[in-house]
């Protein structure tokens, strides 16, 4: 053992941090199961196994110690976030392809933990979104709204074999998400209030989904309380999303949904507390974090409302990921004993 100082340290480790992140997701997953059935658990399991196997294969190729890196928990976080981002009844290979792509391309081509530039889960999601758009939009309806109820084995048959129960159609159990509904209906020149009277909508955003979002928020607060994430990114993300949505809402409430709806719809909460706060792919300076979060908030809103995709969080995160090194370079805080506020790109 090296005797060079310092010889004492806090006992925190990387895998404890990662395990806490996973723990913070558990309540939301429980609620997810309550509203949408246990299929999501299978998705999560699939993604976890695929992520660990891919990681193990790469580590083996690079002759890195397997046990240490597999146990760090980072691959599991990626897997869980990806599984939670894609429709639970998607075919099994969709989850697997996305996870393998995320771990292989976005994480290990860059050198593994700590070296990647883009959030692996979101890279996997975006790749799936671009390659298999139709599979990515078949979201199941919440249990109370679905026209027919499939048993767990029926769901598994569908996920693994693509077989419907006799006489049933996919439409019977799926439904457009609130965001999607809003977008398509607005194109049909209907007013927001009229659309939101639809049965999928609820007080905040969508039935079921809003409760899950609430639990993501609670999980995020737990992480904040545990000092695993700082408040900067979630706060500026949500504030920017709220602000932008608010502006549009004030401008034309007939065609733009309320800011509260946007906070609890789609991937906003999951993105703000679990995805955008990924250490490796977010800025490290407080000012940088604020810029980063605000950038995601604005772009996510712009993409989900004005762009072509149903939700914008994933793309917004990736887009701002690419700006992280630049943001870091230009938001360096003042160093003790130096004049001036920030030094730009290393020069005063």
């Amino acid at each position, binding site marked *: 053992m090296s005797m060079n100082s310092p010889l004492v340290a806090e006992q925190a480790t990387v895998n404890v941090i990662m395990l806490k992140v996973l723990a913070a997701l558990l309540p939301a997953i429980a609620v997810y199961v309550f509203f949408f059935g246990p299929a999501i658990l299978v998705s999560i399991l699939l993604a976890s196994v695929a992520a660990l196997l891919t990681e193990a294969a790469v580590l083996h190729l*690079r002759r890195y110690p397997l046990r240490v890196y597999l146990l760090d928990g980072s691959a599991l976080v990626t897997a869980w976030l990806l599984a939670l981002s894609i429709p639970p009844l998607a075919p099994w290979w969709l989850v697997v392809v996305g996870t393998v792509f995320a771990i292989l*391309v*976005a994480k*290990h*081509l*860059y*050198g*593994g933990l*700590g*070296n990647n*530039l*883009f959030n692996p889960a979101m*890279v996997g999601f*975006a*790749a799936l979104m*671009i390659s298999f758009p139709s599979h990515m939009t078949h979201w199941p309806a919440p249990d109370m709204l679905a026209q027919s109820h499939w048993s767990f084995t029926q769901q598994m048959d569908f996920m693994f074999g693509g077989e419907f129960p006799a006489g049933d159609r996919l439409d019977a159990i799926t439904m457009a998400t609130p965001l999607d509904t809003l977008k398509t209906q607005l194109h049909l020149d209907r007013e927001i209030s009229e659309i939101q009277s639809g049965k999928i909508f609820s007080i905040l955003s969508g039935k079921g989904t809003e409760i899950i979002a609430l639990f993501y928020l609670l999980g995020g607060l737990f992480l904040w309380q545990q000092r695993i994430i700082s408040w900067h990114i979630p706060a500026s993300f949500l504030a920017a999303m709220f602000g932008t949505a608010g502006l549009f809402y004030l401008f034309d409430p007939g065609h733009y949904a309320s800011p509260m709806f946007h906070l609890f719809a789609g991937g906003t909460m999951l993105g703000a507390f679990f995805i955008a706060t990924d250490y490796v792919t977010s800025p490290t300076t407080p000012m940088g974090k604020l810029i980063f979060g605000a950038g995601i908030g604005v*772009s996510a809103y*712009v*993409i989900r409302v*004005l*762009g*072509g*995709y149903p939700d*914008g969080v*994933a*793309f*917004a995160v*990736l*887009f701002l*990921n*690419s*700006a*992280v*090194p*630049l943001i*870091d*370079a230009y938001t360096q805080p003042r160093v003790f004993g130096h004049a001036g506020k920030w030094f730009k*790109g290393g020069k005063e």
Partner: protein
Amino acid sequence: MENYFLILIGTVFVNNIVLAKVLGLCPFMGVSKKLEAAIGMGMATAFVLTLASGASYLINQYLLGPDLIYLRTLSFIIVIASIVQFTEMFIHKTSPVLYQVLGIYLPLITTNCAVLGIPLLNVQENHNFIESLFFGFGGAIGFALVLITFSAMRERLEGADVPLPFKGSAIAMVTAGLMSIASMGFSGLVK
């Protein structure tokens, strides 16, 4: 006014010249190893592009007219080459290090397909003079923005534990691809 704004947003984010149209990859890969060089290159290209789209519009409209369409590419190239030459002399005088760092890529702005592409697209889309300037400027800003963020990423990557076969240009290409995926989120935003 809204039209100009849309052109600007469109060229910077949605139809980004590098990420969406995949033009101008030579300087994009070549001058992105250092942030400072990328900023210099971005500024030089922005200057050339804006000037070139304005000048080429004037030439196309008033000098060539409908009769001499076949001279379009030729005369555009001459104008671009002169502007590049001018920029090169200017940079050589004002910042010798930047001149050396940009090296061969500075005169190669001439053959940057983005620089010729934008004036030709201007003609194709029947932009008026102001629109042409905005289109050129927007394209240049888009190029510079992507180049600068990309170079900052590459600087970070220098310390990364990238597997040997992917070190250097390979991982840079992967990164450019992922940036392109990210920018696809904006598709459908304008036009």
